[in-house]
């Protein structure tokens, strides 16, 4: 199953090292993270040592070796958001979801990460949940945001 998907992804690119990052990006997009066996398959098919694949996967922050939540929460920590109070907002999410920055909740519903400037500084501080942008968030509005996505 994984193998077939990997073969299909690799088929879109030139089969050499320079495609490694693009391939990993597509794998990440497909699974929401980089599963172990997918990395082994990529390493075999592109003929790149697994250690190199792993070092790329850990160097670049776009990649995650852990599954992310169904509702990935991204708190913007860009400069504009920071000066308008993003740090307390992040901490409020940590308290509300019971997970720290970079973690995923046990039921795989939520994950919490920080990002940098998502390009709507006018709405700072900004939080993204999946594709939805929530602007002008303050820590007291955090529970209202998460409520929308809770089962």
């Amino acid at each position, binding site marked *: 199953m994984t193998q077939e998907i990997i073969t299909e992804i690799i088929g879109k690119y030139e089969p*050499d*090292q*320079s*495609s*490694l*990052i*693009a391939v*990993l*990006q597509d794998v990440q997009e497909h699974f929401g993270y980089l599963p172990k066996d997918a990395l082994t398959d990529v390493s075999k098919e592109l003929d790149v040592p697994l250690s190199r694949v792993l*070092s*790329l996967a850990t*160097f*670049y*922050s*776009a*990649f995650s070796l852990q599954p992310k939540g169904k509702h990935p929460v991204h708190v913007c*920590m*860009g*400069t*504009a958001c*920071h*000066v*308008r109070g993003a740090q*307390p907002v992040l*901490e*409020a999410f940590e*308290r509300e979801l019971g997970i720290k920055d970079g973690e995923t909740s046990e039921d795989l519903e939520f994950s919490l990460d920080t*990002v*940098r*400037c*998502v*390009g*709507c*500084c*006018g*709405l*700072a501080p900004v939080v993204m949940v999946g594709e*939805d*942008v929530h*602007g002008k968030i*303050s*820590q*007291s509005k955090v529970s209202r945001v998460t409520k929308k996505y809770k089962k």
Partner: protein
Amino acid sequence: MEKANEKAYRLHLMVCAGTACVSNNSFGIKDALEKEINKQGLEDEVLVVTTGCNGFCERGPLLVVQPGNVFYQQLEEKDIPHLVEEHFLKGRPVKKLMYKPPKEKSPIPILSDINFFKKQVLIALRNRGLIDPEKIDEYIARDGYSALAKALTEMEPKQIINEVKDSGLRGRGGGGFPTGLKWEFVSKSSTNGQERYIVCNGDEGDPGAFMDRSILEADPHAVIEGMIIGAKAIGASKGFVYVRNEYPLAVSRLIKALEQARGYGLLGKDILGSGFDFDIKIVRGAGAFVCGEETALMASIEGRLGEPRPRPPYPAEKGLWDNPTCINNVETWANVPVIINRSADWYSNIGTKTSKGTKVFSLVGKINNTGLVEVPMGITLREIIEDIGGGIPDGKKFKAVQTGGPSGGCIPAKNIDLPIDYESLTEVGSMMGSGGMVVMDEDTCMVDVAKYFISFTQNESCGKCTPCREGTKAMYEILDRITKGEGKEEDIDLLEDLAKSIKDSALCGLGNTAPNPVLTTLKYFKDEYEIHIKEKKCPAHVCRELNTYTIDEKTCLDVGHGCDLCRKNCSANAISGETKTAHQVIQEKCIKCGVCYDVCRFDAVKVK
């Protein structure tokens, strides 16, 4: 081409579909407009067009009516039926949906009369809000690709290079290196029979800037056209656009634009019948700030770890796969077609002695009009902050402006009349950088800002060289303890020493410039550091561990009638009291989150 049978519409409604407007429901507005226009039977007269970012993000969702340049803002779906009927059917513009400056009584109907737009000079952003970025014909209709035709059919490569040199254009990605000179180096470096490459740097690492994104999303052809002209000038056959991972819309717009350009014979083999071959590939970044640095970026394109290497050799000699490579920033490329079209003379008339043309800034932070602004070099900070930006919100006092992102510094209020160019910013300890401009007011803590940037660079240090990796970590630890009230008097000297040694010994620009935010805040705001260290207080109340939250019982009871909101919101159960009684903070339990302060509508919660 389909142009011939395009209908002539009486009105074009330009709906902004930039990121901020989209998150403010601009597509809902677009649908509502189309629905209402159909309902009124105006579909043959009025056309709804979605455009890239208009710049005035603060007021979104936005609509500009052409011809006439009538500007509507902060639209809601419920406003649309009235707007369509009054303005587009009966010809009576709707005043209450127009922009009204904070202190004035009457609205300003015309976009170009609004201060935010008035002082701007649009070169890189020339098409913003005027075209649909997904339609090459609209770009062409506004002189698009005419510079390319001129460069390919009327100019020798050397002439193109000279024109760009004479224009005085300098790199907009941070360093400010003269673009024409760089092109000349690349064109002269030997290739040993190999190819030369062109790269567009769209990694946009500054966490407070989004102009490159906006250009790629709003006008991708401007960048593509610039790159083809550059390719002709230096003799390259292949180009790469490296786009930051978080910009999927920019990527999809670019993909479309490249396909359309190929379809029109503007890319690929024998461009415009001139015998010149060139094509462009998109490479997506993978989320590492250091990849904005040119040598790291090239490593990343080659599929390797994005780590910088020492220069020389510069990319102009040994770039991608060791071949000569010309790398320029998105905004730099977008300027090129205008220079070719309108001449170096015209361009170099704008700006200051050393810095020509315009610069796009993302004006954000504690400012009324947040957004992207393109201004002539030499404009003063005051003009940007007061005239274009409309000043500081809530009557607060302007304290400083940060430029240059993590590599730049904080410029204090006393320098508000500084004319901005590459040199003047460096003189005050900051830099141009990619154009982030973050405004700070009296509620911003400068120690916290310094800590924010150092924590950023520390996180983003690729780890290859020790001064950067360990030095920024040590600086972070010192700043962290100062903001927690554990700072020592010698910490200030320690910070200065560390800053100097990192500056002198780090391998790449990330490390060399990382101390700048700390050095400038130490230079201009040392007193704030001292108050944190000696009095264990944060004057701006940002460093929350130094704050004490209390409730003024009289206000709570008399004005708020003990509304109980704070107690309900306190996640630490640190507030005692019940409805209609005075409340108190139980200090031992309080985690200093500040929620009570935020939620109390009666100002009963005090912070000290």
